[in-house]
């Protein structure tokens, strides 16, 4: 399959054979690793965990399998690397947007909106992430998704407690528990996109209205400022 590539500053169609030749060029280890992870993402998003072999991923990256094994111990190691990269991408994106907000509740609202935008924009990434989950329970392979939830929970709890300290959030609230309600509402867009549910999760306005309702219900002023 030819692809449009920029060669010598000009865009042109590059046939598959030539692309493979380019891919076989020696790359620094880090760049090669990155290109394999990207290939794994595309492959998993398209075919799911089971039907996607290391040979498929190598072919997608335009390399041979032995080269893939120089960078990763196997499919599990590779998929784990892919998941960690996805988690890092999401959190970097969400944190960058949250930091633009001046209050804790506005930050939480922004986080939900950012998560929505990210999952809509990177659907194949999210699909690949969720398709890799069935490896559950095989020697703790599922730690990445759990660790992500725990880090998210710690961050949300911190923001709510900070909000209580600053008088934005009602003092009687048990931040730790409420954080799970908020996360449940936040995670549904991830699941909707993993399942490929179009309707109604293309409707951001209604989704954000629900998030706002939840956050306003614990705001001392009944609204979100900042």
């Amino acid at each position, binding site marked *: 399959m030819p692809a449009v590539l920029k060669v010598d500053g000009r865009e042109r169609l590059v046939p598959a054979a030539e692309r493979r030749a380019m891919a076989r060029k020696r790359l620094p280890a880090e760049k090669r690793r990155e290109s394999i992870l990207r290939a794994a993402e595309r492959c*998993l*998003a*398209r*075919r*799911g*965990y*089971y*039907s996607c072999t290391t040979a498929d991923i190598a072919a997608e990256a335009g390399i041979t399998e032995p080269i893939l094994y120089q960078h990763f111990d196997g499919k599990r190691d590779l998929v784990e690397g892919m998941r960690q990269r996805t988690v890092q991408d999401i959190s970097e994106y969400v944190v960058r947007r949250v930091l633009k907000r001046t209050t804790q509740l506005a930050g939480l609202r922004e986080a939900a909106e950012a998560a929505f935008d990210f999952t809509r924009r990177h659907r194949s990434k999210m*699909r690949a992430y*969720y*398709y*890799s*989950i*069935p*490896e*559950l*329970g*095989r020697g703790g392979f*599922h730690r990445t*998704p*759990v660790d992500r*939830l725990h880090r998210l*929970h710690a961050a949300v709890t911190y923001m709510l407690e900070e909000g*209580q300290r600053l*008088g934005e959030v*009602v*003092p*009687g609230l048990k931040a730790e*528990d*409420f954080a*799970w*309600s908020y996360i*449940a*509402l936040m*995670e*549904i867009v991830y*699941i*909707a996109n*993993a*399942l*490929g*549910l179009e*309707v*109604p*999760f293309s*409707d951001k306005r*209604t989704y954000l209205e*629900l998030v706002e*309702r*939840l956050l*306003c*219900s*614990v*705001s*001392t*002023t*009944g609204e979100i400022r900042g």
Partner: protein
Amino acid sequence: MPAKKANPAKRRRRNSRQAIIEAALQCFAAKNYDGASMSDIAEATGITKRAIYRYFPTKRELFYAVRNEVYASIVNHLWRELPPARDFVELADALMRAHLRFGLENPEMLRIVVNTISEAATREFQENIEALLADREEELERLVKAGIKEGTLDPSLDAGYLAWVFILIFYFLTYMLAFEEEWILSRGEEAASVILRPILDSLAPPERRRKPKKNPGRP
């Protein structure tokens, strides 16, 4: 996944479709879709592989049968064990708690639900699961509409949208359980109420919503 040792003759008599599905459920839950071979399933059922192929031409079809069975069990259980509820809030709470209780008692069923996601890569499966969920969505939408009518939910809310939100929160709880997330395991079915109550509270009509308490220590 150790196969249950039993008298082979006795086993053979049970080589019904149902016995295969039950054995396959355990195998898929223990070894996942790719890890569980038809030979494993045949051994666990106590019949030959050929006998399985008489009922299920492919492993995929057997998996679909297992999955449909699991979804049906989850849904049947939800409605069977339901305590009487006065309004939508109590009903939704009871549904989520029943779901969590069932998940805690049947972890292998949850593994199947989560496994199905990986099969969602194929278009065929996608249509399949959308149909499964669409049935639930209709059911829930009816309940949400009743909740709006009785005044426990804000009439300005979109009932169809809310039905999907509840379905996906079900999934979220399923994931947390399948991950063996510590908080949810330690709280048990109470976790369902902890998660759901604030959300339901925020969906109440304005006049019924709890007024936030002002912090007396601050201006």
